[in-house]
């Protein structure tokens, strides 16, 4: 027996029209962030106070560069989803919410592109 009302069909996509997909991606990126986050703590701790040449050589190491790229992808996807939840909770006007959700996407994308570009440039020399 179907207990759902038509209202349920119209509304089940959630505040930002994405549905349960959001929840699952938040978990997958969250799990990836555990390993990648520990890697970031180690990287920062090992480079505090280091000079330019040391930092550049370390970041150009393929294993480190790949881990950093993975962190950037997983981290920015995760933080964008997380901030969207926060926006949905506190911003109620439809227009303001759309603007905030959009700015959130722009910010996460900008951080992702800047980090990716930097890591690739350092890795490929120049």
């Amino acid at each position, binding site marked *: 027996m179907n207990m759902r009302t038509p209202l349920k069909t119209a509304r089940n996509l959630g505040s930002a029209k994405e549905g349960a997909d959001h929840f699952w991606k938040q978990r997958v990126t969250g799990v990836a*962030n555990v390993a990648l986050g520990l890697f970031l703590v180690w990287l920062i*701790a090992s480079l505090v*106070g280091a000079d330019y040449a040391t930092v550049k050589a370390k970041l150009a190491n393929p294993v480190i560069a790949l881990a*950093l790229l993975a962190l950037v992808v997983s981290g920015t996807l995760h933080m964008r989803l*997380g*901030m969207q939840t*926060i926006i949905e909770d506190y911003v109620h006007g439809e227009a303001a919410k759309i603007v905030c959700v959009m700015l959130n996407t722009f910010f996460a994308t900008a951080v992702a592109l800047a*980090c990716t570009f930097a890591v690739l440039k350092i890795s490929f020399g120049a």
Partner: protein
Amino acid sequence: MADAHSGRGARAARPLSPHLQIYTMTVSMASSIIHRITGAALYFGSALLAWWLISAAISPAYFDYVASWFQTWPGKFVMLGYTWALLHHMMGGLRHFTWDLGYGYELATIDKLCWASAAISLTATALVWYYVATNYGSV
């Protein structure tokens, strides 16, 4: 909020839930709030990581300029805070995964998990920065 009472999407005037301030603060409530605050802090802090990486891709001079900011006391405080936020949020995330899998819902267990996350993240942060301070002296 306004359209709950008028216009399009008008709903019956049901009682609103009690205001947040009448609840007694519990460990789980504080943990939930801190998970959100650390998540938001990590969000904005990611711009600092981007700044640092970009500086290393621009020039030695610009890298030194950015690094000099991280060497100041506020800069060190931000790095310490970022480490703690990351580790604490990570513990919060692991707690969420436990619940998502259906475990750890007994009230006493919830409290223990919350206290344990706080203890582990504080200890881990202290250990990391103790290591940094003793290995680099200058930090």
